[in-house]
């Protein structure tokens, strides 16, 4: 097990290095100036470039960036004077994490429930209804759902706050729901098919044949065995949430890293764009790694590979 984790961790580090390198050189060829004062003259720009080390050869800048990165230093923002990117991201990360976690929990729990109900009522009306709901959930991007929720609960009914974060829990409800629908839909579909397979399997038939009550069959045997494969979903679900959260944070004016990423694009704040990309990639890879390790623990066959 230890060797497996070590090997995976090594791959993660190499992958991160490639991600960092690719983003760094991509940033170099993007058009635009990092300064936001239209009143700068060329000589002033040259001076500023010298101050920020942007006049050095690209390879030197790259080397400096790598070295700083190893010290956990992601550089200094161009937009927020003197503010280090690590601080900027560090203060916004918990907000995004909370939102993502809430959405994941709500989505997965609802998905487990809907999926199980669907499987038990296979081909009945309830199953059909939940099927439509989950398909609709998959085909509605979270930002469109956010807009619809905002319209209905924010503007028309005026039940919930339309933006912001941190003042009250009620502010988190609409964005959480908007983000939770995709994981909900995916989990529902996944759990449904897993459960159906399990319910048709020999050992369940045997349990039934032994005269164990249907409720107990499902609780004791069907659930447990169909829950394990759901672990493998967590990686892809996280990836989906990362994408969804950027726009949802923007729509609800939530000061998370998604919003930071979106707002750093028009301002060409290179250090922030790079920093968020690296954090995103790291988060995603760690989630996938955790999922894989959990799966390996649960399913020993994986380790042999």
């Amino acid at each position, binding site marked *: 097990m230890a060797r497996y984790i070590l090997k995976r961790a090594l791959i993660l580090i190499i992958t991160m290095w490639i991600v960092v390198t690719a983003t760094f050189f991509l940033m170099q060829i993007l*058009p*635009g*100036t*990092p*300064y*936001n*004062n*239209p*009143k*700068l*003259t*060329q*000589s*002033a720009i040259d*001076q*500023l470039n*010298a*101050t*920020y080390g942007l006049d050095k050869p690209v390879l030197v800048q790259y080397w400096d960036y790598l070295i700083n990165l190893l010290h956990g230093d992601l550089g200094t923002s161009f*937009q*927020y*004077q*003197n*503010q280090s990117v690590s*601080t*900027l991201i560090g*203060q*916004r990360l918990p907000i995004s994490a909370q939102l993502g976690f809430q959405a994941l929990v*709500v989505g997965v*729990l*609802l998905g487990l*429930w809907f999926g*199980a109900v669907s499987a038990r009522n296979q081909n009945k009306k309830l199953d059909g209804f939940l099927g439509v709901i989950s398909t609709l959930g998959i085909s509605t991007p979270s930002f469109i759902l956010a807009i619809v929720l905002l319209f209905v609960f924010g503007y028309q009914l005026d*039940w*919930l*706050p*339309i*933006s*912001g974060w*941190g*003042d*009250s*829990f*009620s*502010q*988190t*409800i609409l964005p959480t729901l908007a983000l939770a629908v995709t994981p909900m839909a995916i989990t529902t579909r996944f759990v449904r098919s897993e459960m159906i397979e399990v319910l048709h399997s020999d050992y369940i038939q045997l349990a039934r044949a032994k005269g164990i009550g249907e*409720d107990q069959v499902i*609780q004791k045997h069907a659930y447990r065995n169909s829950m394990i494969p759901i672990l493998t979903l967590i990686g892809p679900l996280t990836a989906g949430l990362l994408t969804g959260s950027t726009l949802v944070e923007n729509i*609800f*004016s939530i*000061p998370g890293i998604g919003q930071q990423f979106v707002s750093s*694009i*028009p*301002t*060409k704040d290179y250090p922030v764009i790079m920093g968020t990309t690296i954090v995103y990639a790291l988060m995603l890879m760690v989630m996938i790694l955790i999922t894989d390790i959990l799966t390996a623990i649960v399913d020993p066959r994986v380790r042999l590979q």
Partner: protein
Amino acid sequence: MKKWQKWTAAIVVVAAVAGGTKAAGLWGGNPSTDKNTLNYALPADIQTLDISKSTDSYSNMILGNTESNLLRMNSKGEAAPDLAKSYKVSDDGKTYTVELRSGLKWSDGSKLTAKDVVYSWQRMVDPKTGSQYASLASGVLNADDIMAGKKAVSELGVSASGNTITFQLDHAMPQFKYLLSFPNFAPQKQTFVEKQGDKYGTTAAKQVYSGAYKFEDWNGTNGKFKMVKNDNYWDSKDVKTKTINWQVVKNADTALKLYKQGKIDRVSISNTPEMYSANKNKKDAKSAAVAAATYLEYNQDTNAFLKNKKIRQALNLATNRSELATQATGGTRDAAQSLVSKGLTETTSGKDLSDYVKPGYTYDKKKAQQLFKEGLAEVNQGKMKISLETDADSVISKNTVDYIKQAWESTFGSDIEVSEKIVPFKQRLKDSQSGDFDVVVTNWNGDYADGSTFYDLFASKDAGYNDGKFTNQTYFDAVKKADNTDATNASAREQDFKDAEKALMDDANINPLYSWKSTSLVRSNVKGAVENPVGLTLDLTYAHRK
């Protein structure tokens, strides 16, 4: 339902109810009657409290209300003494002598001296600081050489002796007094700045304050903070408000909602045309001038069509400015009548400068078509294909290019093809600076309440902001005369500006589109707030609730 399913349902219901009631609880209580406090919202994060490095208007708004400079703009639009007791200008306009009030103190209780003023100016022009606004100091003796690294910082023409500060200028600058009220030139305490090093201005605690209020509770990225009365401010007896609460509210609709609930005392409604239309007729709606103008720059350096005067004139005549203001901006901005924006400053005779200098821009479709035909024949390169570039900062800017494209194409038919190029703000800047455009929409925010803040833009073909690289000798001469010969003669300068505007229109070097204004809903019981068209847009030093 299974047990855990019931639990899930229960948790969801409890959470929703708890959230709902908590929210409902918060709606209670009305802060708009508390006489000791005022409440305001900022539409964007504060970026820095570093006085020399701040570039955005929201950071400047915080700095302007917590830091004092030598002068401060009063409600009449005059630069009145603040930290200065008095100031004198020499007859040739090249030396400013300022005497500080005695017994000035920083918010930490230490003495504020003339040296702090000198240090702030030196820090601004020091290339090591990396300030993006250093060029504002250009005109002060040796400033340009210091910025270019050719001279030592100590050689700057700003010196202190006792309580007196002397500014020596290269040439007379009628606008110099406005710089003395600028937040970016407010005094800075050298020992404090050096002690904080890289962290200077990154949180509220990493700055000292000389203004009417101290800034508190800002940790560098959070969205709730406050200004608390500064007892060490020289005029603290006249500051009536104890606390000003601030919160960052990025969503304009939320800000409006907060205003209606009494939680903030002012909200801007000119962000979108729709919000403006829905609220402009309310009785607490107030419009204030903003010294900003939007105009088109024509690339007269590289584009053969735009080098042709008749074509430029045709394009200008085909621009219906009042329709543009109605359709594209929904009335949130006024149609332009000159390069200089409305409400910037008044002439010696008390007239608005823009009204005085307006050269008479008109919309004339027939004349435009005729001129365009003639122009095309002169250029003789077939169909005119041009790109129209803007940055995507708002709906209004998108609507504007959509409108202009449609207006020109419907006027000139198949002789013209306009393609829109909408790019991020900074890419637009880069394209403007490097001349990589055909027609570009430029927004210019004036720096001080004097016409030269606009006219100096195009002072010569190589002036930093003459992106279209046009040559118009009549215009250049008029501006030069205003800045030199007539620098100390206000009424002659006004005439120079008028001549400049006329020359600009005759040659159609640029195309003025609209003049900005800001419309807000303002709580009627708040008195004493000062709204300036330039610099510190909202000054709350003497604001209080009646």
